[in-house]
């Protein structure tokens, strides 16, 4: 079974600064997808960024980028120029490309605080 671990329960960053959230995962599969989701207090899960395991290039979405290290099974999220609206719980998630289901396996989450 796949597992996802987020070792930072809480992180804080100053507005306009850069912060990196860590995620590691365990799998025996070679093809899969990784995601970062944002969950504000409204509880709505919002996709921030996705990464296909077969792609070596790290995904980027505006101020959000990832550092995907497949051999190390590491998938960190970097938020540049942090904004007050970035404050939320962030979840790292794994999805197999080959199993019959496509469930997301989530980590425990990292609560990000952005200080003005």
């Amino acid at each position, binding site marked *: 079974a796949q597992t996802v671990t987020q070792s930072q329960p809480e992180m804080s960053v100053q507005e306009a600064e850069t912060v990196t959230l860590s995620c590691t995962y365990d799998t025996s599969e070679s093809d899969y997808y990784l995601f970062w989701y944002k969950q504000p207090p409204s509880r709505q*899960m919002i996709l921030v960024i996705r990464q296909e395991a077969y792609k070596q290039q790290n995904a980027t979405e505006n101020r959000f980028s990832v550092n995907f290290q497949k051999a190390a099974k590491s998938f960190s999220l970097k938020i540049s120029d942090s904004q007050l609206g970035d404050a939320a719980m962030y979840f790292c998630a794994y999805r197999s490309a080959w199993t019959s289901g*496509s*469930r997301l396996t989530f980590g425990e989450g990292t609560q990000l605080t952005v200080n003005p």
Partner: protein
Amino acid sequence: EAGVAQSPRYKIIEKRQSVAFWCNPISGHATLYWYQQILGQGPKLLIQFQNNGVVDDSQLPKDRFSAERLKGVDSTLKIQPAKLEDSAVYLCASSSEHRTGTYEQYFGPGTRLTVT
């Protein structure tokens, strides 16, 4: 495009009572997921439907939880009888493909259940 709709947003019941949650996925999405998110944890898949058939219910406590998706559209998740440990947020998500590709899962706002 309308998002995933869920109701109710909040529910408080006493233990041993029954409760039902409703989900309406995004129009045209064949795959529907129910996740349970206990406070301080990441969401965990309870059940996945492809159209009106069950794809994965391996983590559904079948002695008390049931779910159906009539006509492959709306879905209802029921708990009977509820236990204190069922207190959680129940998230519904939908996607347009269940097996391949990076088709995004779109989440609803969730239902917060409190069992007293």
